[in-house]
């Protein structure tokens, strides 16, 4: 029985049209159909946050959304968002604070950090830790990541590039 469904969306600004199985997650769709491998599939039940992508401007779990549900939506992955330069300061801060270890969690951490700072560039330690609580780092590098987000927030606040 063919239950596949047609979907049309834009991914990183590019219109995409595909026929997919309804059971395919948005995260798998991005990785396997579009070869955008920045969003990682970790726990597949919403605990680890490695699959985070933006749908219509909001960070969501790519593993908890079916690809077909993104029909008609605007999806942004770490590839597109990083290429736009939007994350340049955060990326720099991650490098400077040694907040990158194996890198598996990094795309989700960056997208989530960006959302935290978008809501409040002055976010402090507690707010950042709470905001990042949905993203696992199994290299145990949380402290460095929090420092990096604090640093990027501080720089944005001063209005420096």
């Amino acid at each position, binding site marked *: 029985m063919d239950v596949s469904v047609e979907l049309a969306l834009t991914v990183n600004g590019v219109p995409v049209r595909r026929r997919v199985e*309804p059971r395919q997650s948005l995260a798998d769709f991005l990785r396997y159909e579009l070869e955008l491998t920045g969003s990682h599939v970790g726990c597949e039940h*919403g605990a680890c946050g490695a699959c985070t992508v933006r749908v219509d401007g*909001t960070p969501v779990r790519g593993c*908890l*959304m079916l690809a*077909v*549900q993104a029909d008609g939506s605007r999806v942004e992955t770490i590839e597109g968002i990083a290429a736009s330069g939007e994350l340049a300061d955060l990326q720099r801060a991650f490098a400077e604070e040694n907040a990158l270890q194996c890198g598996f969690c990094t795309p989700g951490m960056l997208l989530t950090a960006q959302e935290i700072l978008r809501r409040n560039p002055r976010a402090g330690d507690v707010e950042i*830790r709470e905001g990042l609580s*949905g993203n696992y780092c199994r290299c145990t590098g949380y402290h460095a990541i929090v420092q990096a987000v604090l640093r990027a927030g501080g720089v944005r606040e001063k209005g420096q590039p």
Partner: protein
Amino acid sequence: MKPAPFAYHRPASMTEAFDLMERYGPGGRLLAGGQSLVPALNMRLATPAAVIDINRLPGLDGIRVTPEGLVIGALCRHAAVERSPLVARHAPLVAQAMPHIGHLAIRARGTVGGSIALADPAAELPACLVALDATVRAARRGGTRDIAAAAFFLGIYTTALGPGEIVTEVVIPRPREGWRSHFGELARRAGDYALVGLAINSRVEGDVLLEPRLVFTGVGPTPARAAGAEGALAGRRPDPPAIAGAGRALDADLDPPADVHASAALRRQLARVLLARGLRGLMES
């Protein structure tokens, strides 16, 4: 893991949704925010023949104030409820509970109706609705039905919804003069399922509690009202002896489960801690 294959339907009207629910019966599962259903699919804990995606049903995503009270549509995302000034004003208990629901990205997708219809015993919203005497409104072909929150949650993942019924909205009565509320919970990590949660709603006169409602999460199959502790506090100031008495009463009120995260004894202790903190929060609010 990956879901077993299923057919996907996206009804554009309630009638179409009812048709699909009838066609598939128990083999059809409604998909709202998907933050609980999709993990169950991924782990193959659920293997429905069809997923009926109700996200595009019209008219179920508004928040409004009516003479009945605050009405929150079933398809409202947690994030929208969290930042709604109407909710903050007319249901501060719900506003306080929202940041405890999952993580930022989970709240972006999860829905009020989904959380209620799923009836997870650790969930925040069901306890708030019970504490606030709210009503769950459900639609079926040819009509709607109002169910008191206290009668809605029947067991773990079990509600009073009948076959072919969809939660369409919840109605929270207008805040009454002199009533105050407070929500708190204890979890191992911010956003995780709470080990224990507590919604308090009480009339406060001077510094005396009248008609206190204490509804715990995570300590039983449904939101658990702590009648003994309520009795120990009613008509009293929540001073240390009263709080201690209410804490002792919780031993008879609650029969918490033990699991890998916490023993029953630890959950009882956490419930007492939350009660003391909650009462303090309530009086300071």
